[in-house]
């Protein structure tokens, strides 16, 4: 039973880490252009050899 005393805080801490990452992503504009981001992976930056 005493396990939950530290398991719950650990679970919450990890959840908060995820939330923090999400807030950082929104703030830095990573959700501003979903269509563009989806397409950018198709652009081949490398010059042919």
């Amino acid at each position: 039973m005493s396990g939950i005393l530290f398991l719950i805080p650990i679970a919450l801490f990890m959840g908060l880490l995820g939330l923090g990452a999400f807030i950082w992503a929104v703030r830095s504009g990573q959700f501003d252009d979903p269509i563009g981001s989806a397409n950018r992976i198709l652009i081949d930056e490398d010059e042919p050899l």
Partner: protein
Amino acid sequence: MSSADVLAHTRDWSLGDAADQDSPFGGLSAFVQKSGKSQHLELHVSGAKCAGCLAKIEKSVGALDGVSEARLNLSTGKFNVTWQGPLPASDIAETVSGLGYGVSAAAETDADEVQRKEERELLLAMGVAAFAAANIMLLSVSVWAGAGEMGSNTKQIMHAISGVIALPAVAFSGRPFFRSAWSVLKRGRANMDVPISLAIILAFTVSVVETIRGGEHAYFDAAAMLIFFLLIGRFLEARVRRRACSAANDLAGMSSRAVTRIDCDGNAIKVNPGVVAPGDTILLAQGERAVVDMALNDEFCELDESLVTGESAPHLLSKGMRIYAGAVNLSGPVQAKALSRASDSLLADIGRMLDAGEQRRSAYRKIADKAVALYVPFVHSAAALTFIGWMLAGAGFRESILIAVSTLIITCPCALALAAPVAHVVAAGKLFQLGIFLKSGDALERFASVDRIVLDKTGTLSLGVPQLSDATDERTISDAALLARSSRHPLSRAISDAAGSGPVASNVQEIPGCGLEATIDGVLWRLGSGRWIGVDSGDTHTRNLYLQRGDETPVALEFADRLIPGTEDAIRQLEKAGYETEILSGDTNERVSEVARELGVSRYTSAASPRDKAAHLEVLREQGHKVLMVGDGLNDAGALSLAHASVTPGTAIDISQAASDAVYSGGITSLPVLLKLARRTRSVMLENFTFAALYNLVAIPIAVTGHATPLVAALAMSFSSVAVSLNAIRLAAFSEGK
């Protein structure tokens, strides 16, 4: 004629002028923001759709001298460029335009900024609510699973931790609902956010009290989950709405070009269109667009009025005739007398019509609004009656209020709030695949109720660019092309297009408003209007050209405006689906009737001015018709914004695109699909609302009898939200054939 074409024409004619002001992008320098050494410009790029476009635009602009950053946002079409050094802003626009994309200055308006902020705030709120809902649910599941085994102290600790997580989530993520509910309550009305806010606040407060007292049930999970589900719907709505840009801004950009005024002492000075007064003498250069209505002072002038009247052929004016704002001068420089101020011109009129249309649209009552109007009083009286009923039955205040609150929670309009937005998003995505870009979600509802379709002719049904008719013989074409290849006139272009590449005669003289002449093998050849050649055509619309080789009898070259392939088929499909069709054009009666006959459309109106078009739509509205307007020109913009619903082709000018609900690519062949999908979407939405109503019919008795435990509430809410979303996703399987 498309905006790109117009821009191209304007540029071709102004090549001789070195002044930056005469470039179509000359005004851009006003939009450049300077910070230290670097300069920043935000442009609006239209037509970019894929990774290829993105790479091409960013690379070409990135390669310009001094450009440090070039980034295109494919979702909004905004293109941000930062550079150092002397690079003129117009070069950037020219580069993008040269790649074949439409480009204009994007003045960041307050409305844009507000929408961007709103979307970000909703996304953050959604993230916080998701975190809270997931973590509280972890604790709640252990409480439910441990029923009977878990000690009351442990349970109280679980509830307390849930409450600590829920508090910031409710306070932060609930703000969009609280704010909206408060703003309507202040005005003595109610919207969907009122019952939502009430349910969230009551659920939270009751749970806090229950936790402190060590009670059986806490509804923290319900409160957090409610906010999360509702925010999904809210976010989807905001995303669909964001790309709609303001029509009035684009119009302002169009009329803000400088005007050349001739002073009383004969000096030409560039002035702001705002200071032009009636009676001023204006110089209209070759290729320049008129921004005020004026009367011609010179003998002759040839105009491209396609933006104003929708007429495809150049229009020949003689002294004293009226030049409307928006017309482009095709002949040499002419002088004209201003007849009105810029604010009284046709352009300004259209701007006012657009405003009126936008106001009317915002007054449209959506299906969801109607559902809420029925829902709110019903649910609130049910909750109130539950409380009174249990009190009378002697259940005690605490238990009565708990049951009443659980009624509010379980009936909270999750399904109702998701019913419309999910269907809108799925349908908009489907339409995007079909080449139709939807500007607002509620437009689908308006498309679904349309019964009459009014079509513009030029640029909508027909190509809008003159084409040489098939009757002309090969030799005449190839001979005419000898002269025509050296000219940029629309009719000359049609001839050189028909002839293909080939030789050009040397020393071709272009006589503006008349035609071309050159001496070939010692003989004078002339290609031009009937009036100039000496064949009286009796028509001011220079529809035909004549080719005269030396003393031979002149040969006529006829031009026709061809229908866009597939148009006939689309009209037949629309008629079959029960829509009434009608042509409303600014072109001459002869040409409109010809097209109407060809398409089998019995109702048509010709020679309609922009005001006539708007008036015609008013008449139809009074007759009780729900009109879908399809048009592309500036002359249609007013009608487009006044119609019940409107669509415009992707080749249309920006103002028309902004004034309409959807933009399609290709011909009107996509129209039957659009209308069919709109009807399907509406029926899916109605199914969803019916489902939400049925759900409440089942849920209310459960809650009223006191059986809505937190577990039941969580299951019921998730089930209804998922069911409604899955039903909407069925729209993705829509195919054109069905």
